[in-house]
């Protein structure tokens, strides 16, 4: 198999994997909110908010996807790559701070309990619980926006919007199925670790595309993406380990 085809295959796999993992993380967070609404305000409100949010997100991708793919590739890469790099660094920075003990770990159970308390404190609505619908809608829509952003940037710059979108949908279906089966927040999903991996991949892809967009020529061309991922992962894991050591009680005291 020619090297270029192999490299393309690896890129497609990494693109799909990054989108799948990011979507998994966001959908787990959205599921927590939907479950909280369902348990406190009723499942009609939860499902209505969920469906309306998913339709809105699908419309967003359908409307923006083709428009983004029409932008000239050179201009697209520097802008989209730059945005993805900034976005990815946001994820990676938080993941390093969490792993290093400088930021609280994401706790779906605690978030679920807080959401339930807030929803129970609000008064009940009429037959259609508008408050419940709006909470479910906002939760799913806002979490889904991050996935849409990743799908559009990945898909547009690689020219494989359908692959990115399919990976996101697959993750959403998987999380929904697990949610229906378990009927509780998915606390056993290693969210913090997944966010770390997604942050590494978004940052690496962002560096690769933005670098190309401003005229940098990566040694080994597309294959260098794997080097970037390895280096970013190594630096991030090493940095988190150093932070953890510096923030242990013996080190602080």
């Amino acid at each position, binding site marked *: 198999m020619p090297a270029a085809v192999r490299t393309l295959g690896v890129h497609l796999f990494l693109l799909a994997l990054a989108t799948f993992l990011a979507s998994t993380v966001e959908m787990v967070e959205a599921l927590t909110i939907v479950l909280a609404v369902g348990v406190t305000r009723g499942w009609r409100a939860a499902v209505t908010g969920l469906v309306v949010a998913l339709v809105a997100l699908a419309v967003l991708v359908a409307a923006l996807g083709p428009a983004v793919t029409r932008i000239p590739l050179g201009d697209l890469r520097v802008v989209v790559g730059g945005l993805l790099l900034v976005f990815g660094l946001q994820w990676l*920075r938080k993941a390093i701070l969490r792993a290093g003990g400088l930021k609280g770990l994401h706790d779906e159970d605690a978030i679920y309990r807080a959401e339930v308390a807030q929803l129970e404190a609000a008064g009940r609505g009429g037959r259609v619980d508008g408050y419940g619908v709006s909470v479910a809608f906002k939760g799913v829509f806002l979490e889904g926006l991050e996935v849409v*952003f990743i799908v559009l940037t990945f898909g547009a710059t690689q020219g494989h919007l359908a692959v990115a979108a399919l990976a996101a949908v697959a993750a959403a279906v998987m999380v929904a199925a697990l949610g229906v089966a378990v009927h509780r927040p998915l606390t056993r999903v290693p969210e913090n670790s997944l966010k770390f991996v997604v942050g590494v991949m978004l*940052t690496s892809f962002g560096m690769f595309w933005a670098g190309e967009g*401003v*005229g940098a020529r990566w*040694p080994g061309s597309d294959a260098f993406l794997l080097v970037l991922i390895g280096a970013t992962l190594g630096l991030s894991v090493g940095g988190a380990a150093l932070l953890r050591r510096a923030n242990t009680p013996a080190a602080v005291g």
Partner: protein
Amino acid sequence: MGALKRAWLACVDFVVGDDWTLAAAVVAVLFVTWLASGGGFPSWILVPVGVAAALTVSVVRVQRAARRPPADPG
């Protein structure tokens, strides 16, 4: 605050997050790389090195802020 301004700030917050200096550093790194490209210099090295440096500085700032003793209210 107008709805448009709120929407703009929400978009900025969505992409940039809580450390705008990191985003500014990325823009600076890309600009310098663009300037250095086209000559014989391997400008590609500037991107990972610049990004790594920006991320390190951002994290170290949080670490230093966490180590600082709280301000005396009295």
